[in-house]
């Protein structure tokens, strides 16, 4: 390889590294500038920024298992509840295939906690009264269609009943004065239910639908969520069996539910609107309130309305999973004060800085001038790691946790090892009497093999742990894997080209005592000038070949004998 080709190759690789770093900075910078949520400061996990972490474990009947779908649905329900309570930046994730982890920054109030812990409750209640959710100035006028776009009924909608929204509503049978008063003043655009509020199933209740378009007074619970056997979305088929484009939600009741639902529909159907409607509530909010079109005795019902594929599926899921007898118990609830989190982060960073400093001092002690490359590589690795974490916390919602920080600090050692393996190989080549330039090239060829396979093992550990474990272990495995990949990138794109370029400088190639490649200190003598290195008689020629498999292959008999001579020295002195 010609000298200039080496330099060129080295420059090219350094350029790629520059492109990589600038690219990362540009992406994050662009994301920050356009308010896309990016930031140069990585997001911190709860143990570093303080907050509450609640781990919920499902309570299921013996012998049954929670499906992934159920868990996802539960996460969605909990997320709705937490969002509704006004907590921002809460993280709700599944953990493993069993648990749900809710992470809330700051100190949540008791209501929010209760909200998270309580299980979803699906109920069927008859509608007694209904009106527009927000007491609008236009109350009493005719319907504005936009007011109830999601009303599930195929016929009447809440806002279509101007009489119901009049302020002086005549008392309706079964509604006590207090409920009536609450209903009259109810404004669905404002919070009105305490978080985790549980209603008495035997009393009427005033509430709103989930999007606040309509408010209702509902009678006592007639059918419960557990009475629903199944729910699915599908298109309506006509009596001749041809399918139409109308989406609907099909409900199937259990035997018990069938009887209850038949009773309900039996006494509701003859009534006038809105009393011929029944409301399905989830956690006290009305998710749909269809009008009955018949007495339903067969145990199956179909809800039609302004559904499309997605909304019908969403409602079916709510009915299906909202009705599941799955509750959650709090497996752990951990509060971390913000000050403690900050203290931990600061100490972690301090530990990292001290660790890094010690590594730098030691590598200077061991490798002299080469320490520049070590330190430079570590700094480059640190910059890329920081940028990657900032990028991932933006794109993937990664939050840096304390165990992640520990992973990063540990990575200092593993990253530095790549350089050590490389430098020691180069030194070995120098000991064999090669010039520095040649030593760097041949040392690299051998070192990269070792680095690749050992990093492969490290990466395997990270991937397996990430895939198979939960919680903190995962955060740790993630940083371990990330830093292993970055280590590879840095050693190929920075350490090696830097060494190639430095080998061309006089300081290093002349084997200056402080260069770390002092050929005298390394036991090789007879240095006669740059690029011309005469092997001294004292150094057995075959030694160069001995360590190398590649060289071994090409060894002549004489060389092999020489190699064996060298090795027999070790035999005679091995009792050392």
């Amino acid at each position, binding site marked *: 390889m010609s000298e200039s080709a080496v330099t060129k190759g080295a420059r090219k690789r350094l350029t790629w590294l520059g492109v990589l770093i600038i690219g990362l900075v540009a992406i994050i910078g662009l994301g920050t500038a356009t308010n896309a949520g990016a930031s140069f400061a990585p997001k911190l996990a709860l143990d570093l920024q303080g907050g509450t972490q609640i781990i919920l474990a499902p309570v299921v009947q013996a012998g049954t298992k929670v499906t992934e779908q159920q868990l996802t649905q539960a996460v969605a329900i909990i997320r709705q509840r937490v969002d509704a309570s006004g907590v921002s930046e809460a993280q709700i994730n599944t953990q493993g295939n069993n648990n749900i982890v809710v992470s809330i920054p700051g100190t949540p109030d008791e209501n929010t906690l209760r909200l998270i812990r309580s299980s979803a409750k699906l109920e069927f209640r008859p509608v007694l009264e209904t009106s527009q959710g927000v007491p609008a100035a236009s109350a009493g006028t005719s319907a504005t269609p936009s007011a109830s776009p999601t009303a599930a009924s195929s016929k009447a909608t809440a806002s279509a009943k101007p009489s119901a929204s009049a302020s002086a509503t005549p008392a309706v049978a079964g509604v006590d004065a207090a409920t009536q008063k609450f209903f009259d003043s109810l404004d669905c655009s404002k919070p009105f239910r305490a978080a985790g509020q549980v209603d008495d199933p035997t009393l009427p209740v005033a509430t709103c639908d989930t999007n606040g378009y309509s408010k209702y007074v509902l009678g006592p619970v007639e059918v419960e969520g557990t009475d629903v056997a199944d729910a699915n979305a599908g298109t309506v088929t006509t009596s001749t069996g041809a399918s139409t484009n109308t989406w609907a939600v099909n409900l199937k009741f259990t035997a018990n539910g069938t009887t209850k639902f038949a009773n309900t529909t039996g006494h509701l159907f003859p009534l006038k609107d809105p009393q011929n409607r029944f409301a399905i509530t989830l956690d006290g909010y009305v998710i749909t309130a269809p009008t009955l079109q018949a007495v339903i005795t067969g145990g199956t019902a179909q809800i039609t309305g302004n559904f499309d594929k997605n909304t019908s599926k969403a409602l079916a899921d709510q009915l299906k999973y909202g009705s599941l007898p799955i509750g959650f118990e709090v497996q752990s*609830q951990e509060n971390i004060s913000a000050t403690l989190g900050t203290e*931990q982060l600061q*100490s972690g960073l301090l530990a990292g800085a001290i660790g890094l400093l010690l590594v730098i001092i030691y590598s200077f002690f*061991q490798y002299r001038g080469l320490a520049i490359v070590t330190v430079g590589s570590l700094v480059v690795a640190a910059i890329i790691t920081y940028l990657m974490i900032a990028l991932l916390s933006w794109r993937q919602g990664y939050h840096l946790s304390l165990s992640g920080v520990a992973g990063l600090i540990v990575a200092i050692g593993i990253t530095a090892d790549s350089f050590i393996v490389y430098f020691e190989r180069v030194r070995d080549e120098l000991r064999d009497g090669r010039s520095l330039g040649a030593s760097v090239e041949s040392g690299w060829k051998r070192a990269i093999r070792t680095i690749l396979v050992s990093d492969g093992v490290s990466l395997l550990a990270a991937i397996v742990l990430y895939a198979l474990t939960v919680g903190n272990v995962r955060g740790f495995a993630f940083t371990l894997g990330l830093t292993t990949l970055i280590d590879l990138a840095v050693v190929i794109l920075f350490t090696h080209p830097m060494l190639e370029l430095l080998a061309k400088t006089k300081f290093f190639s002349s084997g200056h005592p402080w260069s770390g490649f002092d050929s005298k200190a390394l036991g090789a003598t007879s240095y006669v000038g740059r690029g011309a290195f005469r092997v001294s008689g004292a150094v057995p020629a075959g030694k160069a070949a001995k360590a190398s498999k590649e060289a071994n292959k090409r060894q002549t008999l004489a060389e092999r004998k020489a*190699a064996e001579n060298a090795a027999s020295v070790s035999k005679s002195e091995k009792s050392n």
Partner: protein
Amino acid sequence: MSKFSDLGNDLYTGARSFDFVGRRKVWFGVASLMLVLAIVLPILRGGYNFGIEFRGGSEFRVAGVSSQSQQIAIDAVHSVVPDTEPLVSNVGTDSIRVQTKQLTDLKSEDVRVALAKAYKVESSSVASSFIGANWGADVTGKALNGLIVFIILAALLMALYFRTLKMSLAAVLALLHDLVITAGVYGALGFEVTPAAVIGFLTILGYSLYDTVVVFDKIRENTFEVEFSEKVTFKQQVNLAINQTLVRSINTSIVAVLPVASILFIGATLLGAGTLRDIALALFIGIIVGTYSTLFIAAPAYSAFREGEAKYRKAEQKVLAKA
């Protein structure tokens, strides 16, 4: 410094050599003794000291206290729940951690208020946590699954790369040695086993194999076609490889241990009990044991597995006949 680099040169040329392979009976004897101790001592001590994540219970952290006296906490807890023996430890420079058995919501609120009063801080600076008994077990169970899968996959990867199952076997043996010893240190000294310690424990397996692979790669190089040699034996070449990578092994373990030691130091002095200290402690023990086991167990064991193979034995007889 110059002496260390002289050592590196001598080790490389073989002018100086430590007999790792030849004295393996001694090393294996030491390892067996250590393993027995690692199993017996924890039993004698009365089992492992599991953290609250495994036992379950309530935990309170009082931040910003002016006095870190633990008796205040014990008295405060006793004033609410007299029948519990709280575990109190200092966290950081101005925080106290109190662990009790599982309390009801009401009781734990009372304890929180009592602690705030006793330490004369706002009740908002007392954080209460509740940890179910099976949480730690869940995490650890999954981690152990991961460990088994990793060992199998890593053994396969090494077998593919090195073209021999015996290297995998030797490496896994050394790995198991490291895990048992580290666990033994925890058990024998009564260090608290927390999920963070489990994480540190898992990292050991990555590090231990990593370290072994680097040395094995040199062994692979040195023993290539050694069966055709009439001067050196398989055993000698393995030993030479260990010696030639010895400087690397020492440098790497020092560089890896330095940051861990600094976490441990910071963790122990500034932070007290917590994630960082627990991870660092497991790693500190693990890195030292891992480096040791590569040199004294993995490589000699590999030699022991292979030197008996017909081709190597034949070659060795030739070498000995000549000598």
